[in-house]
């Protein structure tokens, strides 16, 4: 049976910073030597990888020592990202995900693990990240990680939306729009009537991104009723919706929306919006008959 590597000793081989004992710049290890260390840790299996993960401390943890363990974890993530190393990637992601629950690591350190999962995680770690959505200190980075993973995350985000608060609700609504999965349409349409203006605006953008013709009236109404920065943002969602409708072949709906937008922007200060709608209309009708 092969001897398990001494993970702490391998980690300590990472080069010292320019000015040891201080916040400092570093030159990085020799790539070949680093690759050998990463391979030794992988060869030690789950036990060695978990030893490494448990050495990681965030800089704001009281027992933070240096950058080395987190850097080696990232090195493993990079090496597992190479084509053909799917087994190692899944193993590593699963072990990182296992440390998102429990008291072994601080919230700051868990945030670091989520950051690594954003790079290497797949569908198999979605449940662990979804659980993090209910933890106020982890919800925001977990949303971003899920959005990077994409596969199978829509239902989890919708579930989390029910209990999410404040900015996190905005983040979930925006993520649902970027995922663009039809099952999210009802919750996004409902969010157009949310009491939080930021959620309403985010929902308009997401529905525009998804090309939801059924929401055109509500989005235009939102834009026409908005002022200041919100007005330009909401007007943008109308133009975006028209573009996605055109892309989906729904030119009649796009034309109607653009004409109503154009006709509602009569102030000189909004001439550029009128011009933008007009340009889009002309693009729909090559002979400029809009």
């Amino acid at each position: 049976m092969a001897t398990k590597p001494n993970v702490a000793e391998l980690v300590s081989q990472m080069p010292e910073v320019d000015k040891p004992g201080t916040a400092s710049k570093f030159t990085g290890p020799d790539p070949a030597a680093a690759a050998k260390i990463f391979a030794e840790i992988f060869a030690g299996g789950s036990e060695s990888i978990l030893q490494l993960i448990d050495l990681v401390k965030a800089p704001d943890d009281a027992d933070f020592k240096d950058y080395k363990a987190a850097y080696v974890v990232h090195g493993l993530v990079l090496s597992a990202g190479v084509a053909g190393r799917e087994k190692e990637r899944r193993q590593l992601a699963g072990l990182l995900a296992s440390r998102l629950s429990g008291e072994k690591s601080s919230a700051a350190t868990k945030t670091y693990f989520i950051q690594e999962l954003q790079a290497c995680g797949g569908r198999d770690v979605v449940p662990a990240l979804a659980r993090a959505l209910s933890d106020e200190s982890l919800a925001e980075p977990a949303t971003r990680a899920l959005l990077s993973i994409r596969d199978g995350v829509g239902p989890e985000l919708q579930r989390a939306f029910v209990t999410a608060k404040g900015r996190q609700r905005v983040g979930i609504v925006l993520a649902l729009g970027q995922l663009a999965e039809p099952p999210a349409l009802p919750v996004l349409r409902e969010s157009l009537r949310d009491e939080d203006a930021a959620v309403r605006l985010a929902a308009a953008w997401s529905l525009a991104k998804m090309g939801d013709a059924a929401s055109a009236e509500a989005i235009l109404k939102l834009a026409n009723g908005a002022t200041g920065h919100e007005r330009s943002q909401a007007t943008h969602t109308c133009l975006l919706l028209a573009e996605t409708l055109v892309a989906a072949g729904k030119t009649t709906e796009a034309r109607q929306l653009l004409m109503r937008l154009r006709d509602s922007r009569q102030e000189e200060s909004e001439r550029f919006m009128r011009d933008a709608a007009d340009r889009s209309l002309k693009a729909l009708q090559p002979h400029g008959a809009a």
Partner: protein
Amino acid sequence: MKPRFSPLSRRHFLASTAASLATISLVPRHVLGGAGQTPPSETVGAALIGCGGRGPGTFSELKGLNPVQLARCDVKYLDRADNKTIYTDFRRVLERKDIDVVAIATPPHWHALISIAAMEAGKDVLCEKPMTRFIAEGRAVVDASRRYGRIFQIGTFGRFGASKDRNSILTRKIMKSGLLNPNPGVYIKAGGLKVKEWSGLVNAKPEPVPKNLDWDLYCGPSPLRPFHPHRFGGTHRGYWDYEGGGLCDMGQHAMDPVSWTYGKDDTAPVEIEAHAPPAHPEVCGMWGWVELKYADGFTIVLASGEWGDHYDRKTGRGVKLEDLDEAGRAKIQATPDPEPMIDFAEAVRTRKQPGGHAEAAHRTVCIIHLANLAIRTGRKLRFDPVKEQFIGDEEANRLVNQPMRAPWHI
């Protein structure tokens, strides 16, 4: 289309005649329209967003427009913001109808979002380099510029000089002719990329946020990290959250004339390979060289000269008329010179795109982003310049379009 000189510049003048001396400090003498001064009808209302470091220099690039600086905005102005002339939140600046032009000199993680929001609010934009923090942001800026018919100019001007240089013009004609395939050209940028100087710190323990700084707004679309002074005020360059090291900061300068001269303003490299130690997840660090090859074979090499083995795979080589056969040479000699570039001020007046327009700036900074992504992933990458996606590399693609912290999005 007539230049959109702000009628509210005049209104500002009327208001400012009764205003305090403090206001006059923001309103140059020419606004008052005295003898020998530009009258207010020929000025534009302007704002500077991001007032540290390059801020004043970037604003000075508006000079051809006779700008009246009506607003200054910076997240470090919590202790002095009055939401009249001094702001912390750019959204309040963009709401002002008397501002036609914005100069953006924030750290780069804000460049795309503020540029897009400004164009959505009807402003023309002069944005400090690097244009963006990641690839998808650049495409979104290009789209916004086209959608709203706004002028965008990147704050680096190397291509303007190249466009007046006879050798560069000849090179561009040869490159754009498509007659060289495979293309033997190799451009090597050796040194001058400030790799160590603008790398970040590791082992940095969090410190209290200064009272005058809106740290949450500073972080904006990037992760909300604990504050450390090295992440702010120029040294932000050393962190992936805000920029991309010296390569990103100096790279757009270095590549701006190259991208024009070699006719690569509408495409991107297809193969990228780097020589570097494993990257740190948050801190921009050291690297040796990056080789970026275009579909026609033309190659750009970025060599830091600060780490690792010397680059010796290829030798720098321009493209020449002698590379073509007689018919090819005749074709190049019959090709008219490119149209002269116009600068930002002329672009604002004429509504024609300036030399450093959004697409050109995006394609130029893409060279740098691709180089950094090869450094960050540690492997050879293949890129599709049309889809702007990596081929067969999921991890790299996750860095092409990085999810932002809500409520920010592109």
